[in-house]
């Protein structure tokens, strides 16, 4: 009963660097209390991007997962890190989004020149780096307890970002977020405890070989998946997300909406396809998809009814997360030899990536618009086009991807999901995908319509926005659109390292 061993691959040490580099940056900012916290961040951000790209290149070149066994101790006793095609894609995505956010945040989180250290820049930059470490660990970790620690890291970095401005509403939102995320964590940990009691290992590959269909496994998976859904804010567990993501500073919201909620989803994906006894339970997959459908429809309508731009985008995040949960029945019912060679799985992953890019761009654009106009009431957005045209254009392009109109990553993703739904005769899912697109278009156009209207007579521009910030936001949106030119079929890269897990 010895699970197959992990063999460390060449270049595996880079995985350690990917996790530790942000930590070093964070500790440096904390300890040195330099005049400008962002200077250290600007050293770490491009460095981390390079590391992620190097790992991606390594995976692409070797066509196999990059693995590192920490301290040389084999799992399940020790802990292994492993970058397969999917995780490395998400690592690069994270690095790109964080670098863009870093650039845009320069305007809002620079240390004032007359102070040695100021609260919000110091907190913002340390937490962003902490968050990065957490995300990379989530993507690379192969041990359920290691993933628990990563999730906690993520929560502790994300929560204070929500209440950075210290207003009462944001404090309330942060506390709600923290407590609900903690319930999620405890349920996850409870599941992990049950799994350890049943199998004596928390290593993903080991569990994959051992998993049985018994009560302990079922209850453990139920607790873990529900706990993770709470952290991912899937409807109807979205209570904390709208106020938290709307209350955070735009740069932080971008990271929270684009990346943070994806981490628990990623672990659900791992649990479902790598741990749950195969063949996975079709009815449970349908349950996940139904929650996804409810998420899409309900929260899209809610987005349509919001008066504030950032709240609208936050509700849109919950709706777009719903699409991710559609992939479970779609990937399973497909006649592709493995789940990750199915159109549904690829479509889901592409939705994850394109939503991250589009949503980051959208939140940042909303932030710049709010900075320029001094408010974010959708009704009074007129004149935005004349002050921050590039941001409005970025919002529009990102919106294109959210709506699923061509050419955009969102379009290809939704098309793939729709194709998979058609092929597997999941008509409700197909209808929800189409309906969600129409609703998304409605809420995006509602904003664009106002933003492009001629300014009213008493219009005043509150602040001028430097061009580089606007262009960065546009760049992210363009990335989301360019994803629309990927071919409409499963990509081999996403499957690297998934066939024949160790």
């Amino acid at each position: 009963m010895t699970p197959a061993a992990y063999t460390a691959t060449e270049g595996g040490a880079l995985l350690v660097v990917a996790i530790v580099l942000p930590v070093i940056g964070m500790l440096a900012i904390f300890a040195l209390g330099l005049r400008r916290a962002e200077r250290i961040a600007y050293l770490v951000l491009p460095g981390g991007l390079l590391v992620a790209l190097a790992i991606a290149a390594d995976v692409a070149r070797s066509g196999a997962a990059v693995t590192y066994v920490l301290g040389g101790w084999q799992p399940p006793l020790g802990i292994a890190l492993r970058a397969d095609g999917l995780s490395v894609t998400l690592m690069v995505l994270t690095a790109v989004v964080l670098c863009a956010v870093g650039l845009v945040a320069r305007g809002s989180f620079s240390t004032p020149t007359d102070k040695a250290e100021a609260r919000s820049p110091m907190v913002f930059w340390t937490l962003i780096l902490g968050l990065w470490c957490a995300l990379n660990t989530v993507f690379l970790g192969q041990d359920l307890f290691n993933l628990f620690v990563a999730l906690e890291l993520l929560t502790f970095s994300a929560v204070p970002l929500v209440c950075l401005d210290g207003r009462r509403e944001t404090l309330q939102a942060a506390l709600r977020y923290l407590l609900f995320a903690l319930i999620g964590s405890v349920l996850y940990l409870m599941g992990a405890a049950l799994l350890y009691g049943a199998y004596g290992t928390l290593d993903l590959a080991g569990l994959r070989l051992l998993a049985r269909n018994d009560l302990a496994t079922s209850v453990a998976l139920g607790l873990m998946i529900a706990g993770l859904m709470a952290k991912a804010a899937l409807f109807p567990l979205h209570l904390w997300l709208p106020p938290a993501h709307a209350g955070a500073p735009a740069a932080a919201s971008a990271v929270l909406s684009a990346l943070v909620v994806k981490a628990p989803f990623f672990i659900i994906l791992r649990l479902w396809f790598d741990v749950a006894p195969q063949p996975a339970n079709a009815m449970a997959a349908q349950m996940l998809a139904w929650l996804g459908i409810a998420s899409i429809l309900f929260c899209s309508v809610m987005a349509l009814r919001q008066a504030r731009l950032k709240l609208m985008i936050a509700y849109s995040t919950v709706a777009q997360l719903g699409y991710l949960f559609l992939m479970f029945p779609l990937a399973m019912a497909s006649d592709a030899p493995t789940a990750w060679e199915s159109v549904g799985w690829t479509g889901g992953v592409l939705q994850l990536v394109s939503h991250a890019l589009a949503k980051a761009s959208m939140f940042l654009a909303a932030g710049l618009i709010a900075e320029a106009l001094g408010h974010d009431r959708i009704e009074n957005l007129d004149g935005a086009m004349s002050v921050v045209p590039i941001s409005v254009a970025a919002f529009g392009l990102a919106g294109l991807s959210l709506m699923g109109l061509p050419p955009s990553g969102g379009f290809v993703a939704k098309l793939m999901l729709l194709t998979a739904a058609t092929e597997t005769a999941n008509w409700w899912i197909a209808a929800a995908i189409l309906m969600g697109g129409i609703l998304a278009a409605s809420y995006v156009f509602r904003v664009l319509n106002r933003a492009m209207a001629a300014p009213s007579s008493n219009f005043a521009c509150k602040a001028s926005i430097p061009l580089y910030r606007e262009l960065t936001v546009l760049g992210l949106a363009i990335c989301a659109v360019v994803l629309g030119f990927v071919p409409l079929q499963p990509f081999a890269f996403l499957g690297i390292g998934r066939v024949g897990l160790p």
Partner: protein
Amino acid sequence: MTEWNFLLVATLALPLAMVVACLHDAFYARILSWLPLAPVPGLLAALFERGDSIVIAPAPLRLTLALDDVGAMLLGGASLLWAAAGLYASVSMRGKPGSGRFAIWWLLTLTGSLGVFIVADMTSFYLVFSLASLSAFGLVAFEDTARSRRASQVYMALALVGEALILFGFVMLVSATPGGNPLIRDAVAMLSGSPLESPAVLLLILGFGLKMGLVPLHVWMPLAHPVAPIPASAVLSGIIVKAGVIGLIRFLPLEVPSPDWGMALMVLGLLTAFYGVIVGITQEHPKTVLAYSTVSQMGVVAAVLGAGFSTGAPGTATLAAFYALHHLLVKGALFLGVGIVGATGSRNLARVVIPMALLAFSLAGLPFTSGALAKFATKPLFGDGLAAFMATLSAAGSAFLMAHFLGRLRLLANENAGAVPQTSLVFAWALVAAASLVLPWALFPEITSYALSETVSLKALWAASWPIAIGLLMALFIQRIHSIIPRIPEGDVIVLLERLQPLAARCGIALERTDLVLRRWPVASILLLTLAMAFGATLQFAR
């Protein structure tokens, strides 16, 4: 590969390049004057290029352009109308606020609407179709009035529904074929016999029918077409609706007889043809009357396609396209003419109204006009029975509606009795009007087996004339009872739907309340526990 096929690429590339060039302020300031040139490559392509296909991006993207006879016919007509309307716009829109924005929407719509005639693969088709559909929003919404805001909202909502229907239909089409992005004809060839054939055909008919304005999905058209500036109305009503026609032509397996679907499409088309007339007759504004006429005429085109589809008659596509071309040019000329009338004083009115009458009755099949040719050519598809009779009767309806249009048109004349329109406006109008009279005569021998002389035989003349006579009689009669016919508001059915708005608002509020309840701490955490247990139970007990 011929030396001309760069023209196909240029058809799409030139207008897009113009949009990009607008980033340059100096060009942006002068963009209006460049509008007439944007469709020129399309026009040249229609004249010189035939039969080849160009793959712009290799597999697996496989973006492919190709031009066949049907596409060339519509591409040529559409390019011509775009050019003339562009000329008109370059004069009439000058100096208006927001004209630059208008030009950009114009160019994007132009790219999309010409693109649908020349792309050969599914993805590109969806891309250009959406481009045309969604950019036209900018044209509809241009005049920032309450009326245009309502119209543009309805337009957008239905355009998106149409997009969704078509996308779903495409997915069903593609799911029958291997590989990422098949050519349209390959996908359609695989459709027959696939288990998804029926739903796919239904979705495609609904989606493209919406774009053509088939009842009851026509509601956006009488709202959207009249609110746009004159040249935009001309291209919306003349060209954009043809995206639906080319969609049906390209995506229905017309050569495979399909009695049920063909019959359904034909009935829907005829119903639309009469419905457009009946509602149109109650309208006040000439542009709205024209919009309802477009609804009616597109009904006829759908009926033609349906009739051909039901028997699998060869050449249906070409004939339907021929009819569509006729309508494209005539309707374009009529809309531009509305603008000319508005700029003409009562003293010179006759010089405008007489050609307008000729154009108007061309829609009803007036002998020696393109309408007569189009009706003559498509008639055999309907056979001899009831369908043929109804098709003929629809011509009477058109005459009736057009008589009403001409009656309303006079009221638009410029208050200044001596006013004359600008020469370039008149030139643009005259160009399209002349093309509508000449072009179909040139094409007729190529696309049918009839000799031109047959169309002017006594029998044919009689067959074309009597419906017009009936239509005129009805018009006379209706004028007597004019005061007692009810006024149906523009957009007819949508008005009823709008009554539901308070209900929708109530639903929205109820949803918000639900959200508040769900987002309360005890409720959400109870739901979390319930989900965890339900999930565990499902994993354990449902196998």
